[in-house]
Every structure is written in structure tokens, then in C-alpha cells.
């Protein structure tokens, strides 16, 4: 029997597996998706969208207003995201502690885990000469308007900008192993230390017994079972919550499936007379760092993407759409990410399909409007000839559903990451986030993986 079985190989599962394996434990890592590496990642945007995501590209909330991008491959969402590595600030940790009652949500208690994870990754803070024109326009306009901004810190080792490498191509996986995804930073290292990995295994449910946990799933429609002394769910907000619901925990844990948040993201465009080429080079280098924005519950980033994704954001049809796309190289783009209320819910219907309810609250809408107002001001101050206000929005940071807390009536896992009332079943991923931090969640998920590993190895 394995000491530990980890289900899900993203930021939480990747980090946890690495630290457990490094500590000498016998670990099995199970992943629902395929195992791609730098030389096998999809080479085009169309192939990446079709191959790397649950739902074949995009999933929706119940109202089909908010799209969710959720990856299905070894390394999870860290493969396709920008790998921005921010520690949580006092506001985020204070709000977690207040909501959950967990007393170690403090800078002091989190610091050793942040430090450990940071020391195991290559980190890079962008500099002035690395800004793309999209970043320059953003920063210059913020200066004009008196908004504070800063350079982003990203997990990357060698993106080869001097050779003309365009990092938008790594939105379907980094072909250089530069981006410090969970695959690069943890899984591949753990493999060399003896971690066993099985892929394309989708877990349906778990069942505890006196000496461990039995796992039931399927591989290519064939039933499979595994057994571990301890099992840790790391399937993310949707994946872990779904496994817990299908395992029948809802009757014991009423908070299961509740408190879902997603940092809803809205992207608006400015059309410049000059060529911006926002898709070239290290395309995302700066973000807002304005304390007023933080207090008001949103942040701005200069972002961009490849043509199919950008086309999806222009909801006009026909000639108007094509004329917008004709100006692809002239687009300046800014995104607002809203620190949303955790009022969403995750359920599973009788066919086993996820049903996610996520309506923006009055507070979410107010935050969104303030953020979009700031974007419009920045685009106008940048000299944009026209501003396009996209109506499409997405949830990229999927959080909650199995939140951590001291009270089993209001949470799913206890402060030791253990499912309330269970001896050998744990969860560590974004599903345990008590509420939306308003900060990129990746570094903290990895750090929580480190904390749990240290605890389990004692």
C-alpha cells in the first residue's frame, strides 16, 4: 500500500508530491489528464484549446455568462497560466483568518513555506527594458493618472527574449521548460526522486476504512481502484469538490460545494494608431499596485492572448468583427480581476455533470465597474483611438467548494487540511481557500502543499 496517494497534479498536488517524495515517502500521483512535456505540448492555439482543457475548451456557469478555463493535464492550470508568483498580503491573510478561524493564516506562519517554495523555483522580476509596448502604454498612463503600478514577479528561468521568443506560445505549455509550472518546478524533479505517476485516471469517489482510503475511478472507461494509507485530494475547486460530493460527504459536511469564488476577469481593448504587438516577447510584465485599487477590491494587469482567444472577446459579428481583428497588432489590452464574494456553489447533477452557480453580487458588480472605469481612463490616457468594452468574462482562479475552517458546520477541512471527521483523507488545493484573496493564487497553493507535506512527514 502506498504511504500517500495524491489525486491531481497541479500547483497543490505537484508541490505536495515533490516534498513528500523528497522526504522519503512512497507516493503515487494520479492525474485525470495526459502527460505532456516541453517537446510534446500542443504547438498551436487551436490545438491547445482543444486538448488541454476539461470540457474541450471551456466550461460555463449555470447561466452561461461566466466561462471557466480548467486544465486537464499533468501540471494542471500552472501549465497554461502566466505563473505570476505573489505572496498574499496582510489583507488576504487577515480575511482568511477572520472567515475560517484558522490561526496560522499569518505572514509569520506562512513565511517558511513561501521561502521554501520560492527557493525551489526560478523567479524573475521584470525590468524596464523587458516591458512590451502594451506594458509601456499601461505604465505610462498609470503615471499620468497617479495610479501606482509595479513589475510582475514570474516563475521563469530562461525565456530567451533576446532570441525573439514570444511567450504567448507558452499559453499551451512552455516548450523551453522555462515557465516554472508545477510540472517543471516539482513533478519532473519528484519523478527523478522516485515519484510514481499514473495518468488519464479520473477518480469518481473515495471511501475511508480503518487503515486507509480506497479510491474508485476509471481509466479509458475501465474501472480502476487504488488504496493508500493517506489520500490527498488536489483536484482544484471543481475536481476536489466533485470527488467529495460523489463520495457522499454532503450530508455530513453542509459547507461542501459552497463558498466558490473565481476572480472574474474582464478584458477591454484600446486601439492605437501605432503597432503595439501585445502578443510579442514577454507579453505580461506589469500590473497595478495601487493601494486604493486593493481596498476597492480589484486589480489591473496588462494582458493579451493569441488570435482565437482575442476573437472570442469581440462579440460583434460580421464585418465589424473582422475589422476589429484586422487591427490585432494595434490592440492595447488591460484586464480587471475582481476580488469577488464567495457566494458561488458547485453541485453535481444526476448525470455526474458539474453545475456551477456563480452570479455576480452587487458588491462584485460595483468592484467591476470601478475597475473598468480605471481601465477606460488608462486606455484614453494612452491615446487609444477607440475603446472596445468586451462583454465576455471568465473565471480563471477557481477557489472554494471545500473551504478550510475550524467549524465542521461551516467548512470542509480542518486547519490540518484533514476532512472534518476523517482520519486519513486530506485536501490541499484552491478548493480550501476560505474566500477570494484578490491575489494570484498559485504561489500560496504551492506553499500550502509544502506545509501539508511537512506535517504529514512528521
Amino acid at each position, binding site marked *: 500500500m502506498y504511504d500517500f496517494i495524491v489525486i491531481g497534479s497541479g500547483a497543490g498536488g505537484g508541490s505536495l508530491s515533490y516534498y513528500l517524495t523528497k522526504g522519503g515517502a512512497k507516493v503515487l500521483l494520479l492525474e485525470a489528464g495526459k502527460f505532456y512535456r*516541453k*517537446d510534446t505540448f500542443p*504547438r*498551436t*492555439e*487551436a*490545438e491547445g*484549446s*482543444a*486538448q488541454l*482543457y476539461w*470540457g*474541450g*475548451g*471551456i466550461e*460555463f456557469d*449555470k*447561466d*452561461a*455568462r461566466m*466561462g471557466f478555463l480548467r486544465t*486537464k493535464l499533468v501540471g494542471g492550470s500552472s501549465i497554461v497560466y502566466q505563473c505570476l508568483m505573489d505572496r498574499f498580503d496582510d489583507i488576504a491573510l487577515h480575511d482568511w483568518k477572520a472567515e475560517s478561524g484558522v490561526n496560522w493564516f499569518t505572514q509569520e506562519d506562512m513565511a517558511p513555506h513561501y521561502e521554501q517554495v520560492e527557493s525551489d523555483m526560478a523567479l524573475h522580476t521584470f525590468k524596464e527594458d523587458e516591458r512590451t509596448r502594451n506594458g509601456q502604454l499601461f505604465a505610462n498612463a498609470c503615471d499620468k493618472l497617479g495610479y501606482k503600478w509595479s513589475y510582475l514577479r514570474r516563475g521563469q528561468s*530562461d525565456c*530567451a527574449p533576446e*532570441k*525573439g*521568443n*514570444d511567450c*504567448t*506560445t507558452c499559453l499551451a505549455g512552455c*516548450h*523551453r*521548460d*522555462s515557465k516554472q509550472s508545477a510540472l517543471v518546478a516539482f513533478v519532473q524533479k519528484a519523478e527523478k526522486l522516485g515519484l510514481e505517476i499514473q495518468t488519464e485516471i479520473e477518480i469518481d469517489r473515495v471511501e475511508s476504512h480503518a487503515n486507509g482510503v480506497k479510491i474508485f475511478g476509471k481509466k479509458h472507461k475501465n474501472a480502476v481502484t487504488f488504496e493508500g494509507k493517506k489520500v490527498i485530494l488536489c483536484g482544484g475547486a471543481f475536481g476536489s469538490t466533485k470527488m467529495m460530493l460523489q463520495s457522499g460527504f454532503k450530508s455530513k459536511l453542509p459547507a461542501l460545494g459552497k463558498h466558490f469564488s473565481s476572480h472574474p476577469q474582464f478584458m477591454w481593448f484600446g486601439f492605437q494608431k501605432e503597432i503595439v504587438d501585445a*502578443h*510579442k516577447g514577454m507579453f505580461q510584465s506589469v500590473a497595478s499596485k495601487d493601494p486604493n485599487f486593493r481596498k476597492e477590491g480589484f486589480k489591473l494587469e496588462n494582458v493579451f492572448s*493569441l*488570435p*482565437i482567444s482575442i*476573437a*472570442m472577446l469581440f*462579440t*460583434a*459579428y*460580421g*464585418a465589424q*468583427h*473582422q*475589422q476589429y*481583428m*484586422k487591427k*490585432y*497588432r494595434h490592440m492595447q489590452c488591460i484586464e480587471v480581476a475582481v476580488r469577488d464574494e464567495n457566494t458561488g456553489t458547485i453541485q453535481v447533477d444526476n*448525470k455526474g*455533470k458539474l453545475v456551477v452557480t456563480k452570479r455576480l453580487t452587487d458588491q462584485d458588480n460595483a468592484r467591476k465597474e470601478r475597475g473598468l472605469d480605471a481601465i477606460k481612463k488608462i486606455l484614453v490616457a494612452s491615446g487609444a483611438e477607440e475603446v472596445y468594452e468586451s*462583454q*465576455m468574462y471568465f473565471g480563471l482562479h477557481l477557489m472554494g467548494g471545500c473551504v478550510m475552517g475550524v467549524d465542521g458546520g461551516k467548512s470542509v477541512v480542518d486547519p490540518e487540511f484533514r476532512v472534518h471527521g476523517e482520519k486519513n483523507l486530506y485536501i490541499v488545493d484552491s478548493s480550501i481557500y476560505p474566500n477570494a484573496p484578490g491575489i494570484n493564487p498559485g504561489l500560496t497553493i504551492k506553499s500550502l502543499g509544502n506545509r501539508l507535506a511537512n506535517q504529514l512527514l512528521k
Partner: protein
Amino acid sequence: MANHLSKNAQKGLGRLGDLILPASGEFPKYSDVAGFQYLDEMVENAPEDDISSLSLVLSILAFMPGFILQWIVSKMEKSQYDPSNGILAVTFRQLNVGIRGLLYSTYYSEKINPNYKGKTPEQLIDFEVKRVAD
């Protein structure tokens, strides 16, 4: 690879595509450029029942009168602005994203008809990226 979208479904998608991506200025209409042979690859990982439903809807659209198709496209285009969360509004929003995802993936990409001779949509928007392997 399985045949997820029937010939009739592809025909329906082509008709919708020509309304959403018509011939305009230098841009060719969708059906002139589309890489129909790549559609099955594009939906390979989507849930089977979603694809069956989509295939059925598209097959019906292949034989719908043009004015009904125009009405559907108009409803899809406005769906993001529709405050309703009723089943019709939700369906049009799903179609808006699902259909456009398929159209754009086989138009603004390299997944186009290899026999197409004109400037491709990628060339028309002057898109180029460089991938430097280590």
C-alpha cells in the same frame, strides 16, 4: 479519430459561419477558408453528450430557411447583453461561445482548408509568433 460532427452538421456550421464571418473587404467568408476536416479534432475532448447535441442542432440548421438562421445568429450575437437567465437565453449564450469557438479555431488559425489559395485570415491580421526551443 471518431466522426463527431456529421456532414450535415458541418454544412450547418458553414451556413452559420458565413453569417458570422462573411466575405468582407479582404476577408474571405468562413466556408471558403474553413478547415472542416479539423472540426472533429477540435471537439475530440468535449463531453460526448454536448457534442451529440451540438451536432444535432447544426444538422437541423443545415436545412433551415435563411431568415430563421439570421434570427438565430442575431439572438446569439445579442445573448451576452440579455439579462434573462431563462433556458432560451442560456442556450443562445452557450451557442455564442461554442459555435464561435469552432468557427474561429478553423478560421483565425492554421487549421484551414489547405486548398485555399488567397490570403489567410492569420495573414490578413498580420499575425506571427516565434517559438525558440532550447
